[in-house]
């Protein structure tokens, strides 16, 4: 936070994000279900938050002044779990328990099972409302922490998403950052062919958000946007991050079919090869 990141810092973020992507493939392959596409699109945003932007301390996950992240698109859980393991919040070996009976790694994030998870989400349109509540809570308590919410673009078809965004704008929550993972695809196809949300950046502006559009896979642009959000204290900031569903795996990129479908063994092997980790498919 604060100082200008060095070029080495960007290399480190890229290396971490690559490792997160490998884990997403391993986890969803072993689980036999899950949402690889929207996890891979959100990976760089989550990596930038956990490894650079947010004020956090894995040794004190309940510290009152910690920054909060709400994964309003709770189905991107694998990306967050992988990042949390790499950040020291949970043992890396536990990642392969995703979606198994008795695991702390629920299919959608559960605050009562894991540290760092501020809000259980999964049913869409609710996480952003909880984030607004958390930002109000921080303001009332006089705490300096910030609240980040990652939204899906399919989620922007849900009315309550805009209710909550309206409230964030109305209360001029300068400590709130809404990040849209704009990968363009939902379960059945492209958002614009199913129920168009464009011009979505204009919608955020109309809802009183300082709105910044970035390439959601470019760490320079992502971190610049976070810095701009910090500088904008008069109200909330929205970051519309253009991303690629399935980013990093050629046959998943831009394919809505991998929204809620895991890779099979051959696909997992190929994906890991593309991600620079050939021959490392874990046993199912």
């Amino acid at each position, binding site marked *: 936070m604060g100082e200008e990141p060095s070029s080495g810092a960007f290399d480190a973020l890229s290396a971490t994000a690559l490792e997160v992507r490998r884990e997403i493939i391993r986890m969803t392959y072993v689980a036999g279900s899950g949402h690889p596409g929207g996890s891979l699109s959100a990976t760089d945003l989550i990596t930038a938050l956990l490894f650079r932007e947010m004020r956090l301390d894995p040794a004190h996950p309940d510290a009152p002044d910690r920054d909060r992240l709400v994964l309003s698109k709770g189905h991107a859980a694998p990306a967050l779990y992988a990042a949390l393991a790499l950040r020291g919040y949970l043992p890396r070996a536990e990642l392969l328990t995703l979606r198994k009976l008795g695991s702390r790694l629920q299919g959608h994030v559960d605050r009562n099972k894991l540290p760092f998870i501020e809000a259980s989400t999964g049913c869409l349109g609710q996480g952003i409302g909880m984030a*607004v509540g958390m930002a109000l809570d921080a303001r009332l*308590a006089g705490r300096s922490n910030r609240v980040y919410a990652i939204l899906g673009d399919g989620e922007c078809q849900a009315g309550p998403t805009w209710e909550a965004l309206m409230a964030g704008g109305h209360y001029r929550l300068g400590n709130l950052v809404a990040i849209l993972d704009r990968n363009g695809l939902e379960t059945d196809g492209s958002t614009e062919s199913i129920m168009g949300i464009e011009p979505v950046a204009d919608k955020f502006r109309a809802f009183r958000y300082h709105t910044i559009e970035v390439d959601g896979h470019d760490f320079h642009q992502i971190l610049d946007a976070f810095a701009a959000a910090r500088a904008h204290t008069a109200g909330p900031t929205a970051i519309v991050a253009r991303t690629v569903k399935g980013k990093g795996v050629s046959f998943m990129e831009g394919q809505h079919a991998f929204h809620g479908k895991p890779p099979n063994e051959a696909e997992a092997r190929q994906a890991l090869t593309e991600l620079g980790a050939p021959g490392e498919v874990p046993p199912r």
Partner: protein
Amino acid sequence: MTPLGKPESLRDAYGKTLLELGGRDPRLVVLDADLSGSTRTVLFGQKYPDRFFNVGVMEPTMVSMAAGLALGGRTVFASTFAVFAAGQAYNFVRQSVCYNRANVKIVATHGGLLVGGDGGTHQMIEDIGLMRGLPGMTVIVPSDAPTTRAAVLEVAERDGPAYVRLTRENLPTVTDGSFRIGVAGELRAGTDLTIVAVGALVPRALEVAEELAQVGVQTRVLDLASVKPFDVPAVVRAARETGAILVLEEHSVTTGVGAMVAAATAENYPVPVRRVGVPDVFGESGEPWALLDRYGMSKERIRDEAWELLKLRGKVQ
């Protein structure tokens, strides 16, 4: 029998109790969705404007915001009409509040048919069923103003989600305000029959019990304001000691308190149980108390059902 007390507003009791709580707990927060005059949260809003959020007509988001505020360690009250709190916002109550185990108290006013003129769209007769089905949810249906005050104080004191259903109409005081969560209030002793009632039908239960006493039938009356957790031992005791149970509720009989009492009785001590409530239909506009008569909750109907049970048990001819 003591005569029924003067009708009082449960909503006013709620509003005044919130003021009390607001003074006691400086972190307590209240939300409303553009009905603060009707729900009486306006009293809190006037005294503690910094801790009051009137979010307008966005009930689902009122609930998710309440959860977000509560997850920071606060006690949060959120109020609107029952049809919006339990209906419009159901999945938000389910995930944001209950699944998260957030310390949110939903106090819903205008439950049941007694909404009156607004008609079937606004007469919420499914909320008890919806809310009692949620894991971890406490559900309270106060029968009078003193119970409302006691219930609001106790849910505030306990950590975790709660749903308190209030009626729009003023109700006579029938209890001494000694309500406790999980405890059925025995308002009248008896050994021939038990009437279990909630909310606005508790006074009618007492009136019918008094009429039955004139002909020598001793009716036990239980106020089951604590719907969840509910006092199973009290109901089983009633089944064993009186042999028959009549349940009264201003709610759909398909999923309400009667269904719950019947199941508990069948499992623990099977005796005849009959249910008086709204049949499986929506309501309509009308004068509030006339609606109760029209939809099967008249005193005559209650007396007839009681009589049927007494006949079944061979206690009357």
